[in-house]
């Protein structure tokens, strides 16, 4: 019991941090920051999913923006086509899951460079299809996506009156996603994933169904991305082709790398901070360069992530 409480303490602290950020910003009449913090939450959800796949299971995906775009564009097409409005996000999640299943079954047989190239190619195909298809608005993207009504007057919408509740909706989902991921990592499945990361043959030899576990975590991480894409499309009331671009995929990898690969909390922190700064325009014209630079610098000097370097320093007085 105490053990479970100790485990949940960080999540409770995070929830408290989220609430206090909102309270402070609103008190300072600076709640326009909440808009970017909300967007950063949705991107962070993608990074968390990728962290499970890349950090824990050791399977690189250079095409995760593709899943984000599939979710976002499915929601966009459905909600602008006049279908029942509640259908948009569930369908987006289902479509993303289905595509990731179809892509994952063959692609996850590949390893190393081949897996990286295959997922890169997948992302490229998605972005080319978006750019070449009138249904997806080609280079213009899809705009005028309506708000997504939840329950009790709540809605995923970027309108000013919805600002505070959307901040809570987004971070609430991130919190749930993080909780699920943390539990997964601590479970039998999580241990199996780490075994697969270490050595697939060895994992198979102790009875782990390697293909099944890899596929499951691949689909789960794609669902995180698809859900984030769908919600952000509703929040921004639009989606453009750059969301599915290679640069975005590389960016998610950079966030997970900066967080320390197999480190969900690190990924959360790195993603929330860096994405927020990027959305505020802190990196100016050098936005993509900053993420490329982070990727190279982290992998060269601190392959265990920024936070591990800090920890190491703290431990050696």
């Amino acid at each position, binding site marked *: 019991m105490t053990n479970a409480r100790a485990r949940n303490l960080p999540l409770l602290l995070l929830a408290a941090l989220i609430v206090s950020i909102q309270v402070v910003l609103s008190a300072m009449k600076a709640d326009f920051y909440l808009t970017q913090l909300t967007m950063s939450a949705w991107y962070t959800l993608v990074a968390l999913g990728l962290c499970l796949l890349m950090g824990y299971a050791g399977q690189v995906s*250079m095409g995760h923006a593709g899943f984000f775009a599939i979710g976002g564009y499915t929601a966009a097409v459905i909600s602008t086509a006049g279908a029942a409005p509640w259908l948009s996000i569930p369908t987006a999640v289902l479509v993303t899951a289905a595509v990731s299943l179809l892509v994952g079954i063959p692609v996850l047989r590949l390893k190393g460079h081949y897996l990286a190239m295959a997922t890169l*190619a997948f992302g490229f195909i998605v972005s*080319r299809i978006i750019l070449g298809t009138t249904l997806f608005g080609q280079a213009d993207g899809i705009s005028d996506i309506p708000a997504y009504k939840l329950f009790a007057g709540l809605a995923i919408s970027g309108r000013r009156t919805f600002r505070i509740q959307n901040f809570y909706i987004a971070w609430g989902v991130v919190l749930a996603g993080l909780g699920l991921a943390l539990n997964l990592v601590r479970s039998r499945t999580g241990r199996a994933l780490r075994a697969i990361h270490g050595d697939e043959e060895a994992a198979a030899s102790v009875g782990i169904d390697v293909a099944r576990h890899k596929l499951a975590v691949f689909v789960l991480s794609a669902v995180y991305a698809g859900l984030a894409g769908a919600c952000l499309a509703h929040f921004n009331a639009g989606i453009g082709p750059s969301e599915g671009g290679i640069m975005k995929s590389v960016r998610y990898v950079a966030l997970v790398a900066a967080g320390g690969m197999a480190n969900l909390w690190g990924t959360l922190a790195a993603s929330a901070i860096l994405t927020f700064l990027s959305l505020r325009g802190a990196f100016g014209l050098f936005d993509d360069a900053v993420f*490329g630079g982070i990727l190279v610098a982290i992998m*060269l000097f601190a392959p265990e992530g920024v936070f591990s370097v800090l920890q190491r320093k703290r431990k050696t007085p």
Partner: protein
Amino acid sequence: MGAAQLLQYLFSGVATGSIYAIVGIGFNIIYSSTGIINFAQGEFLMLGGMIAVSLQGFLPLPLAIAAAVALTGLLGIAVQLVFLSWLKKPGILRMIIITIGLSILIREVGLHVWDEKVHALAYWTGDETTSLAVLGARVSPQVLWVLGISALMVIGLTLFFRFTLTGKAMRACASNSTAARLCGIRASSLVTLSFFIASAMGALAGCVVSPITQTQYDMGTSLAVKGFTCAVLGGLGNVSAAVGAGILIGVLESASISVLPLAYKDVVALTIMLAILLLRPQGLFAGVGRRAGPLGRG
């Protein structure tokens, strides 16, 4: 479709395909000396094209191209020495991420040193309206330049690897670097040399293709993926098979334009790659796999 039109597709397909093949060979050269797939390979073509475009205002075209090739080659050396040479036994995932990060950085250098516009080098002979009649089809002389330069590079490389001492030493390192070192071969300088060859070749390919396909800062990724397709299709590590694979992809891609919308052109090549990776991971022409194959230890 008339015979002349078919020939037209064939020519443009073979030309773009041979550029993919050069990228694929670039992958092969670095892969066989280091076991690394250099995801920044496509960026060398962009750099070569961009530098030559900038220099053509001051220098005669052949000199501008030579300077672009030399500078990009030096940059390839710099990339290897600064970023990669000092890493001790890095894991594959780490190397993939580093070279992808480098590709983004080089791309951003391209964006900020030049701009986001499309640039084109002058046609090597004549201009965009010049064309030669080959078997009834109208072909730009630049297409012949592309074919000629690619052929020269492939022949040159083959001779280099087969008959020069350095080339033989590089092959020795590729097949067993420990044994090669025991014979007194300095493996580390050969790795640097392989980066020079790959980047200089990429730059030359970038220059010769620039009048036709133009040069833009973000052209590298699609070239890298297609070049990798050639390398895999031919069997990773197999130089001459990559050429055949490149031509096959180029022709299929240019033929796809007559059936599918232009925007889907890239989708064709990439779908071929995915299919090959999954159905015939050892390559179309390969016999025995070397190093780790796509499905694990080879």
